[in-house]
């Protein structure tokens, strides 16, 4: 039981009041960082471009290779911002809903569920439109979330963090095997979705981004609006009920937002893991645990991290690229292990 370690409500409110000015500063800082990273993402890449090329491309001209390269980077950067924000926010929401510091769309198997659903749709049901991909991905994400939560809650202690993480990780491993089993016979598809399977934003175009915007918008809205509910849930189920909150409903509605974000993102970018784990932890250190501030901060932080990883991936292995999914795994897994080590054994 984790309740004995949580500070009481009054303590928390006073802690929040003290750091309001700090938080505003951090928020401004992360927005500035994001702007800088976006600029970097547009100017830097596998091909060197000149300043005039950049300004020309931003104005809409694609006369030479340099300008074309920049023109490609603009939707890529945009997708990176959206995907990173979605995953960072979804991770923060999941950690709040399950009170689990190990929660993350990848670890809890949600991304893999979305992947599996999309792949099944393409291979067995011949879906082709972007809209269909997204709906299937969301359905897969939702089913995976329910599945993992059910399994993780079985037995003594309910859904403890370690049990839930284990159920999610095992489900993720299992689903990954099934994805390979489904995709393999279709050599025509297997090569094409290779990059998607690893998780990346390369090859992004405006046509791929438009269909997913409405889903992301709704997902962002629902998630951000659930901030108050998440604050109450953090006090523990009994206290939250005592304060008049309908716990099951709050959990479900907040989760819907996260699932929409994960599903939509995975449909376009493939399963990018560990972002939703790392970002909320860092943000919590900087702005505290009030979700009204933590959620938007996680979104912005997620965007920053994804863009940074993408830029690094483009520079580090020139002229080839390292897909974002690989970098987030390399950075995120050690963080995951570090958090696992800190968990108390009695929470098994």
């Amino acid at each position, binding site marked *: 039981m984790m309740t004995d370690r949580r500070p009481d409500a009054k303590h928390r409110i006073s802690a929040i009041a003290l750091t309001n000015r700090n938080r505003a500063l951090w928020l401004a800082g992360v927005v500035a960082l994001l702007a800088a990273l976006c600029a970097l993402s547009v100017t830097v890449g596998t091909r060197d471009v000149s300043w005039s090329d950049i300004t020309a491309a931003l104005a809409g001209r694609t006369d030479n290779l340099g300008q074309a390269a920049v023109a490609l980077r603009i939707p890529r950067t945009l997708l990176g911002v959206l995907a990173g924000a979605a995953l960072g926010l979804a991770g923060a929401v999941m950690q709040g809903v399950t009170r689990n510091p190990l929660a993350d769309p990848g670890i809890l198997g949600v991304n893999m569920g979305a992947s599996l659903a999309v792949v099944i749709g393409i291979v067995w049901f011949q879906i082709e439109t972007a809209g269909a991909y997204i709906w299937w991905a969301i359905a897969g994400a939702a089913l995976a979330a329910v599945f993992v939560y059910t*399994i993780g809650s*079985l037995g003594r202690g309910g859904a403890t963090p370690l049990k839930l993480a284990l159920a999610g990780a095992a489900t993720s491993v299992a689903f990954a095997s099934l994805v390979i089993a489904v995709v393999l*016979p279709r050599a025509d598809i297997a090569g094409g979705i290779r990059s998607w399977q690893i998780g990346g934003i390369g090859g992004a175009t405006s046509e791929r981004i438009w269909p997913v915007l409405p889903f992301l918008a709704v997902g962002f809205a629902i998630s951000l609006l659930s901030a108050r509910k998440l604050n109450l849930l953090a006090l523990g189920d009994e206290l939250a009920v005592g304060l008049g909150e309908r716990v099951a409903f709050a959990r479900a509605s907040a989760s819907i937002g996260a699932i929409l974000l994960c599903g939509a993102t995975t449909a376009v970018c493939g399963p990018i893991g*560990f972002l939703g784990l790392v970002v909320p932890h860092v943000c919590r250190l900087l702005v505290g645990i009030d979700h009204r501030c933590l959620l938007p901060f996680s979104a912005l932080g997620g965007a920053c991290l994804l863009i940074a990883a993408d830029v690094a991936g483009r520079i580090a292995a020139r002229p080839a690229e390292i897909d974002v999914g690989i970098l987030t795994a390399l950075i995120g897994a050690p963080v995951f292990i570090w958090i696992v080590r800190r*968990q108390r*054994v009695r929470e098994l």
Partner: protein
Amino acid sequence: MVSTSLQTLIANRRRRQRRYRSVVSILALLVVALFALSLAIGQTVTPPLEVIRVLLGEQIAGASFTVGQLRLPRAVMSVLAGLSFGLGGVTFQLMLRNPLASPDIIGITSGASAAAVFAIIVLSLNGPIVSIIAVVAGLGVSMLVYGLSFRNGVAGTRLILVGIGISAMLESIIAYILSSAPAWNLQEAMRWLTGSVNGAQLGQAIPLLASLAVFGGLLLSRSRDLEALRLGDDMASALGVGVARTRMLIMVAAVGMIASATAVSGPIAFVAFLSGPIAARIVGSSSSPLVPAALIGAVLVLAGDFAGQFLLPSRYPVGVVTGALGAPYLIYLIVRVNRTGSAL
């Protein structure tokens, strides 16, 4: 005068021994039968007599090639890899007292595979040196996982989660190396991601046979100590087992075997994970599941490869078949572990 209780005791023990012996015999026969089947049946069916003649060294047009060059190396590799994964997997599960602590889940096969991929694609190496590198990497990953999950003793779930985390890192490294390789060969990729015995060569079987003999022999010689370890570290120590030393010896042997197999066939998904629980179920909890698990590993790989080639609508490498089989079992096992709070 012998008391009746003593007689009953002896009778029951003999009964258990008989059950063990018949299980092992049946499994061994199954392995031989599947082996023979995979030599005889392929795109064409080769009559058994011809198969035997080819094996004895005769040169028969057509059959010598199909049986001798195509099917025999593949079947031999399947058996050796299956034995290695089965025995290595059950050893880990027994030693760590948890069926989820299988080397293919906690990252050891991923480590060996990543090392093998690195050696072959980046360093352009070939032959036994690749196996050695894989074994060293496998040992390194085991120590890393064990060390990272050690905090006042090793808690089962923590070990598994750390292992899964490290496995994720290694898988992404493998994916990166494969995707940046000069020629994206789906077959090769499948080998290193899920395991395959396609294109096996008899020459590769020799180091594998050696590793099986050495490491497998070492493990089997310690099977009694392993049984004592199942009772808990304290109890094993009280029974006269040098716990730390035995554990390290057993682990080195198991990792050595698994990494050697991985260096050749890739990490054949879930064979190490499935063999132990199936063996324990068949042979009963009172007998040692080591040898049955090895045989079941061989059965899984032989049958999986056969099914992947001929019984399914498309050609699958063996790793995909065993992966699809292992996935639901993994889920079932989590459900059972959570529900009953038990371990292997």
